[in-house]
């Protein structure tokens, strides 16, 4: 209090001196007094700047220390590329699987159709009593072979159709993988926004966005992650290689 009062008094004294010097036209002395007047404010400014610099330094250090960004750039971004490549090859496989079934099925359907047309013609002539005995014998033979193969061929078509259906499971599997990559991109974005906030010095001391991002980070215990993608961190955890593996594991658990 006393100091403040003294400060006020001396500031007042200095101000009076400044007025006197200015009235006397003594610019040099006025300038000197002006600098003395300014001194306490400059110190405050420097103190404030120093404090801010220290905070920024600490914030940057802590950000670097536990940042998900490091993990993201070192492991998950390369993994994400691998995941998307896997999606490309899965969709390619599914398409080939579908097209192969169609390649095999179309000629079967066409040949069934053609033979049915020929038989219909002969049958119509037979009904119109326009068929010779020789021609009738031929028709009977054709019908025999048609009946024999139709069952087989339509069964083959049915199985090709279900092959086409099963090939569509890629949409679910790749969809899960793509969603995982989308989550990663969102997390990366949040972390980058956090970084920008830090460097713009208007940061909040707690780095809120970083905490939000951390919450849903990684693959926690029990959390669903979708299909296992080869050549990624997925392979590091213990995964089953197929249904036989699942059955073996479950039977070891008494299933």
């Amino acid at each position: 209090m006393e100091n403040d009062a003294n400060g006020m008094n001396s500031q007042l004294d200095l101000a009076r001196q400044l007025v006197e010097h200015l009235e006397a036209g003594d610019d040099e002395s006025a300038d000197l007094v002006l600098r003395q007047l300014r001194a306490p404010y400059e110190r405050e400014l420097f103190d404030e700047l120093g404090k801010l610099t220290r905070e920024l330094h600490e914030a940057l250090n802590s950000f670097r220390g536990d940042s998900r960004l490091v993990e993201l750039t070192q492991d998950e971004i390369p993994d994400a590329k691998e995941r998307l490549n896997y999606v490309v090859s899965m969709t390619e496989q599914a398409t080939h699987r579908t097209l192969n079934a169609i390649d095999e099925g179309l000629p079967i359907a066409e040949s069934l159709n053609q033979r049915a047309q020929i038989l219909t013609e002969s049958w119509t002539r037979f009904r119109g009593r326009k068929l010779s005995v020789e021609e009738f014998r031929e028709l009977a033979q054709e019908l025999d072979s048609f009946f024999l193969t139709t069952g087989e061929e339509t069964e083959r078509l049915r199985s090709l159709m279900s092959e086409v259906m099963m090939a569509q499971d890629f949409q679910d599997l790749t969809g899960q993988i793509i969603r995982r990559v989308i989550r990663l991109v969102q997390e990366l974005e949040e972390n980058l926004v956090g970084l920008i906030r830090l460097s713009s010095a208007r940061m909040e001391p707690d780095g809120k966005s970083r905490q939000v991002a951390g919450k849903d980070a990684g693959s926690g215990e029990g959390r669903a992650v979708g299909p296992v993608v080869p050549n990624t961190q997925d392979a590091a955890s213990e995964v089953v290689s197929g249904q036989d593996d699942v059955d073996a594991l479950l039977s070891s658990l008494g299933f």
Partner: protein
Amino acid sequence: MLLELHVDKGMKILIVDDFSTMRRIIKNLLRDLGFTNTMEADDGTSALPMLKSGSFDFLVTDWNMPNMEGIELLRTVRSDPALKDLPVLMVTAEAKRDQIVEAAQAGVNGYIVKPFTAETLKEKIDKIFERLES
């Protein structure tokens, strides 16, 4: 052939998966096996009210779904006095050993990893109902 006599083809089945394409595939496969009384839900939160009001006989569920995952749905079913005995088959891409153990401990009746085949689905359904009979 004998086994098929045990499984009631008219039983009411709920298929839960967030991908409509997978729901259609499972629905088609079940229809091929003779099960035509099926309904669909896209995740645990929409499945639960259906299960509670719908007298279902069998639940086929995915694991990785938004809002409520399959494992959570399974636990909720097992802890509900009215639903606790409902047979549950999990059909999922989740392939970690820990997860399969977790599902087994939560009381799953069967576990199929995607991609799967029609034969696998049939085999697991037969097995589940064979065990329930005995």
